[in-house]
């Protein structure tokens, strides 16, 4: 398959621009990242700098990869990370726009690589439970119903890739933050710090420079792990509850 790529190129500290590349003789079974690898090999041979992009596991579980492809975060295929998107999903001969996540809170480091430390700051603010380390607790010491466990697992699927921010017209991080608040709010282990967690994570999110949620639903549509908007309603509930009870 052949494609015309329109790729965002940006050197650190400089202004970026869209540059056009040909991607020739690409296997339909190549993943999107493998296609970029092939283009990069040629660029390097031709003495040009390779296109920088983030990746790690390439099996859809680590959350490192992600670009906005033809206007869709992680490309147009539902519930798929960019590394799991294959070129057969594109039309032969088509033009493909590849851009980095766009958000004030995610500055571009180089080309398609953005700095997602803002997500780390949100997690550091309260996305954890404080427990004594040491020997592993007995697996069944705390009973959790099947329904609750399933619901918590559904949100725990979030891999923190940032597609929700990239897809949101407001570059809001509410889906990510709500998933992280929800997975702990649902479980008994999360209860002791429930109030402070909502308070602190929401504020960390605000400080990072993300936009506000105006309920467009684009995040849910883009999320490769299909995290639901319901979690945003839960975040709002948690935050209102914590604010009423005045625990910070």
């Amino acid at each position, binding site marked *: 398959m052949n494609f015309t790529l*329109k790729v*965002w190129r940006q050197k650190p500290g400089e202004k970026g621009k*869209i540059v056009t590349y040909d991607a020739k003789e690409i296997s339909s079974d190549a993943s999107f990242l493998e296609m970029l690898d092939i283009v990069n090999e040629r660029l390097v041979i031709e003495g040009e700098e390779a296109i920088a992009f983030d990746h790690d596991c390439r099996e859809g579980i680590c959350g490192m990869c992600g670009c*906005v492809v*033809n*206007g*869709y975060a992680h490309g*147009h295929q539902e519930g798929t990370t960019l590394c799991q998107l294959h070129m057969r999903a594109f039309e032969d001969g088509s033009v493909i*726009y590849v*851009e980095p996540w*766009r*958000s*004030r*809170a995610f500055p*571009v480091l180089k080309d398609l690589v953005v700095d997602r430390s803002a997500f780390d*700051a949100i997690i*550091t*603010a*309260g996305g954890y439970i404080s427990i004594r380390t040491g020997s592993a607790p007995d697996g069944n010491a705390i009973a959790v119903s099947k329904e609750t466990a399933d619901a918590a697992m559904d949100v725990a699927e979030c891999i923190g890739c940032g597609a929700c921010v990239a897809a949101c*017209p*407001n*570059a*809001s991080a509410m889906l990510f933050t709500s998933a992280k608040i929800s997975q702990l709010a649902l479980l008994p282990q999360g209860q002791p710090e429930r109030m402070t967690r909502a308070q*602190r994570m*929401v*504020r*960390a999110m*605000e*400080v990072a*420079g*993300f*936009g*506000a*949620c*105006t*309920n*467009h*639903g*684009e995040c*849910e*549509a*883009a999320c490769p792990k299909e995290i639901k*908007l*319901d979690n*945003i*309603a*839960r*975040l*709002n*509930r*948690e*935050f*209102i509850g914590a*604010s009423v009870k005045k625990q*910070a």
Partner: protein
Amino acid sequence: MANNMTFLETSVGKKVLMAATGFIIFGFVVVHILGNLQLFLGPEALNQYAAFLQASGPIKWTVRIVLAASVLAHIVSAVMVTLQNWRARPQKYAVKRYQETTYAARTMWLGGPIIGLFVVYHLLHFTTGHCHPVKAGFIPDSNGVINVYNNVIFGFQDTVASGVYIFTMVLIGLHLYHGLWSMMQSVGLNHPKYNHWRKAFAVLFALLIATAGISLPVSVLLGLVTPV
């Protein structure tokens, strides 16, 4: 990462305020339009209703103050949230496609201010008479009272004035189509069992309010209701 942002300094808090004040304004709009539909019941009904509203002094002023405060809080938080959202993406995408969002959701920031301007026009039109196209509507009778029934009809006989109302009613319908659903999400009102009712509620009330609002000027323009 403790910091001392207050509730309303967070966007989540502002959205709660917008939802609460939006709901108050929505409640008023429902009652207001229901009251005005009495135009179809004839001059007696509408004029009595108008007199009743004017007579209840303290209630009238309480409602006015609560409404004015709600509108102000709604606008201030809407402007602040919108500006935060515009700042959040300094570099736009060359290509961006949307999958879920609606025209209504994307134009909240624009529809809101237009509705706000309309409210000013509306008050100058029917409450103070400053923008009244037909002077006859605002001439008091021998007892010094304005015939509200005639006032409304003369007001709507002007096609430009009617056009403004019809246009704004469509905008209010759009604003509520997204807003009434968004409001529930913003205050955390959701339950898997009832979630499908939230959109249905929004669609129903958006349609009802827009249709009822449009029916008034249209009926006057078509000559279905005439001055007495």
